[in-house]
């Protein structure tokens, strides 16, 4: 099990936020965590605490304010976009410009970092795409157009696209929004399965704390005071979840590992 201990992504004294011309707005600082190969990591926290900012900084959409992020022992800043595309893939909440593509075509876009100037798929590319479709159980949707799909199906397609990109890390920003309870559990369960099956490190942000506690290997909890990264059981016994939200409405029940509405 030595391989499972390989650190894929780590941050040291990371501060995240927004840089404007004259000032910088720090959203969170002192972020230190290590994400290992084959792990499923859930990122939770209240609205506006900076979950998206953290993910956007990791996927290099936003600059690091201070400290650093290391991916496969390389500083994120020194990785150029073509190399990063082979190490990190993303699933975002934003709408696609066009859904007028077949599922296969969309998943095949994940091969772009590897294909030639006009995007020709080789046989091995096609195999990887088909394999990604199979892993996510959507091989039968292959020829459907993306606009014909339900939200749950479409989320699976986007996950398959990220898988086809064949990266060590997949980052998902709130993959369970707009989904019903069943599909929320289904998608997170699927991510857990994929992390085990493919050895990829999967980091997602979510408001489904209950589900995340049950499925994740590691969780990153963002509170106003600190950013804590640990195994879910340790987080519960340390009482981290209790400090997540103001206590006037909901409180965390250590016994069941879920939130209850205060009476």
């Amino acid at each position, binding site marked *: 099990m030595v391989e499972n201990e390989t650190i894929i992504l780590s941050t040291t004294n990371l501060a995240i936020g927004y840089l404007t011309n004259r000032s910088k707005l720090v959203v969170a600082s002192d972020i230190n965590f290590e994400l290992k190969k084959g792990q499923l990591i859930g990122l939770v926290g209240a609205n506006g605490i900076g979950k998206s900012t953290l993910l956007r900084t990791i996927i290099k959409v936003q600059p690091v304010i201070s400290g650093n992020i290391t991916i496969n022992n390389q500083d994120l800043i020194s990785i150029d976009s073509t190399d990063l595309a082979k190490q990190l893939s993303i699933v975002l909440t934003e709408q696609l410009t066009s859904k007028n593509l077949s599922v296969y075509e969309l998943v095949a876009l994940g091969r772009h970092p590897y294909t030639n100037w*006009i995007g020709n798929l080789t046989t091995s590319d096609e195999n990887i795409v088909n394999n990604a479709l199979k892993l996510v159980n959507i091989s039968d949707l292959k020829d459907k157009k993306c606009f014909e799909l339900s939200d749950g199906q479409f989320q699976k397609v986007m996950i398959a696209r990220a898988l086809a990109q064949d990266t060590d890390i997949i980052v998902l920003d709130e993959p369970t929004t707009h989904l019903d309870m069943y599909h929320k559990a289904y998608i997170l369960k699927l991510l857990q399965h994929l992390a085990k099956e493919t050895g990829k490190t999967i980091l997602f942000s979510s408001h489904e704390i209950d589900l995340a506690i049950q499925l994740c290997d590691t969780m990153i909890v963002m509170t106003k005071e600190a950013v804590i990264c640990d195994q879910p059981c340790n987080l519960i016994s340390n009482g981290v979840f209790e400090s997540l939200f103001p206590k006037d409405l909901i409180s965390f029940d250590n016994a069941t590992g879920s939130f209850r509405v205060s009476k």
Partner: protein
Amino acid sequence: MRSNKSYNKQLALLTAALLVCFLLNISLGSIRIPINEIVSGLYGSAENKTWQIIIQDFRLPKAITAILVGSGLGVSGLLMQTLFRNPLAGPFVLGISSGASLGVALVILGSGLFGGILATYLVSKWSIVIAASIGSLLVLIAVLAVSSKVRDTMAILIIGLMFGSITAAIVSVLSYFSTAEQLQQYIFWGFGSLSNLSWNELTIFFGLYVIGILLAIFSIKDLNSLLLGDNYAKSLGLNLKQSRMVIILSTSIIAGTITAFAGPIAFIGLAIPHLTRQIIKTSNHRVLLPAVCLYGSIVMLICDSIAQLPASDYILPINAITALIGAPVVIWLLVRQRKMMF
């Protein structure tokens, strides 16, 4: 893949249709020339010498111009719609045609300022082409300079519209101080025209067109990434600023050249990509780009044939015909499909 084959079949059919339209376009006009004579006329061996001249010096260059204009405007419209994620974008959203109009307006309307003798010299065919080129080139440089600074793609769209407003305002001021003849000449330029291009002009036109189209072909992969949105495209390793630059450059070269040689031809650039997406149901640019070229050429050839009013001496303004014929077709397609493909 099954779907790829069906795309290829559609493209082959379109190519055949283009060939038919091409021959018909040459055949129809104030004098009708039989199709079999056209084929020999193209090789320079028509029996009738008049027909030979008509084909060689008038109809053939006009038909080629129609193909270049139709396919070029279609492609640049497609590039802009994908880049700006906006179904209302067309080749001229960046202010290219406004720049060209300003150049032409300065030459035609402003010629009074340069004095009488100079004026007649200035308002020749080439001076209009050059003025239009310089005008669109200046706008192009301004847009490129801005786009290298701006991070948000949508901002470029607004800036392009602003350039359009500025040039329109200057044209209004110029028109206010112009004579009726000058205004008429300016308006006639605005009607657009596919005829009157000599082989020399056509060679230059073709050369620039090829450069623009090559840039578009090199952008196919980037355009497909952009279908996912800017952030996804970046995560696939796309250099957003660079590919945006290439796409804008391609559009500007194509649309600028067309405006310089054929006038500001509206509608085609906006409508052809929609027409194509309604019929060939995909956004994959590897299929869409050639399809848009073919559809654009076919529609332009048909519009030109209608504008010539077969068997009469009248020629209607091409700009009016494209919208008169094209708009109902697009409306009909959208109503029939009940859904806009994008």
